[in-house]
């Protein structure tokens, strides 16, 4: 998941759709995010590249909608409902996720195990 500035980024992503849960007057997704272009990337425990300023999932509330949809801790959010998440500030990311008029968020997330799974599957069937 390392990126070279100025070059297009390729990653293996998983599409996850989370239905927001209504709690009182709030719509919650059930996870916490960290990171952003205005934050300190060196403190991120989940990233490989310590200069990566992307948005990462830092905590999942067990039994919440995110957990049920398949989001895992350490995932990097690439897109939220079509909006890019690789070059946003922390607050912008929060806003994109917590829009009150949206019931559903469709995320594109990436994680290291995905890459390895793809490599493994390609390695198993080298000539396909």
């Amino acid at each position: 998941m390392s990126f070279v500035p100025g070059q297009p980024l390729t990653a293996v992503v998983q599409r996850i759709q989370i239905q927001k849960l209504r709690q009182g007057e709030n719509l919650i997704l059930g996870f916490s995010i960290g990171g952003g272009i205005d934050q300190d990337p060196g403190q991120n425990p989940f990233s490989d590249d310590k200069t990566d300023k992307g948005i990462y999932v830092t905590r999942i509330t067990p039994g919440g909608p995110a957990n049920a949809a398949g989001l895992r801790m350490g995932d990097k959010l690439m897109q939220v409902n079509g909006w890019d998440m690789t070059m946003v500030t922390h607050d912008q990311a929060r806003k994109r996720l917590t829009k009150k008029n949206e019931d559903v968020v469709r995320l594109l997330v990436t994680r290291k195990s995905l890459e390895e799974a793809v490599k493994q599957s390609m390695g198993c069937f080298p000539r396909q």
Partner: protein
Amino acid sequence: MDTESTYSGYSYYSGRSRGSHRHGERSRDRHKTRSKDSRSEKSVTINTPPAEPLLGDSAVRGEQVQDDNWGETTTAVTGTSEHSLSQEDIVRITKDLEDSVGLDCRRYFTLALAVILGLLVFLTPLAFLVLPHLLWPEKLQSCGTACEGLFISVAFKLLILLLAVWALFFRPRRAGLPRVFVFRALLAVLVLLFVVSYWLFYGVRILDSQDENYQGIVQYAVSLVDALLFIHYLAIVLLELRQLQPCFSVCVTRSTDGEIRHYNLGQLSIQRAALAILEHYYCDFPVSNPALLSASKSRAAKHLAGLKVYNVDDAFRAKLKAYLLDSPGNNAAAGLVHSQSRAMIAAAARRRDTSHNELYYEEAEHERRVRKRKARLVVAVEEAFTHIKRMQEEEQKKAPGDVMDPREAAQAIFPSMARALQKYLRTTKQQHCHSMESIQQHLAFCITNNMTPKAFLESYLTPGPTLQYSRDHWRARQWTLISEASVTSGLKDGSVFLLRCVDFSLVVTTKKIPYIQMSEEYIDPKSHKFVLRLQSETSV
């Protein structure tokens, strides 16, 4: 306060012993003198008699009576007659006779009343103590130890009262104000009532009944002196302390050239505030120079010359209206008359378009000329100063050659810089403020005190405060206070008054210092805690 006028008798003694004539009595006079000459140290003060307010408010404004040294003469007249005028007094009086208009009987009257009240007040305790011994000595109980101790107490308290009154009231008179000083009048009335009531009590209960208890009488006298000391304390608070706390900010503007200064004053009456402002004026405001205003006056004259002023009197206007009313439209007539004046002003305004240009170039040229002259002057003065050298002690003994004292040295080097200095003063229009004599004196002074040429020049480069110049150049000697509110009323927010002298006037406006509401907030020193901003985590 009038207790001190008693001490006028004693002050004359002390005045004689010290040979100084500075002790007079402070005046709370109702005189209209606004002369600044009365502020010389030769002025003497008097007390207004307490009877004055009872006589009614007949203070007259606007009279320009001024009398500098009536004090000197009255000390001779009303003081105990052993004293005669010294030679100094006579010389001083004749020197200031040109300023003094004449001795005013009212001042004699107020001084006499003040002296009487003072004597009454000072002698009362002594009378209380002495009268029983004179009137019924055989019936009187002998004075025991405690009673004699009270004698010492009376003596020292009277001495302290004397010194305190001397310190507070025996100061040179600063000014003549138009109206009576209200607080002093009230204090005099209070003292008089107080002493009269004590005498009444004494007369009825002690003299009539011929009380034998001498210790009681002595204690009565001691209580009188104590109360007098407290009244003196009240006098200090009312006359001196009350106006120390700043309450108002006054803005003083000079009408001719717009010099503005701001001062902080306490709670004062308008006339005392005016006095304080004038004293500041002499120290702070640069000397008024009418030559600097001639440029703007000539411009104004040129504007007026450009205007053609039609004499639109009623007859003309009526004729115009009648003429125009013949034509259709009545409102056209009035409109035409107005538009005619508008047309006049418009025509003049178009002419005025070029005068700002002239002003700009003229000012730039003047600036350049001044700087050039200043450069020449600085060089000339520096060169002149190099011609003389201070002789050291040893050299003085050795070489008695061409040795000069400061005045001669100044006269020797003055000619080399005289021309440059004169040209500079002419360019900056200051030539009337400095005479050759004063310049040479100043030069001698600078040489004596080892000043550099720059230090010598500073007093000519910028106009200094009015006090620094000789009296003839002040152009501000007699002042008139013009105010819509009564001058003995206190300063208020927004009060405006004028101080006018012959050439210009000072416009004074007042603003109140606002009431400040302050609240407190306590911060525990242990509450200053910080965390590093690592990665903020937001839950969604």
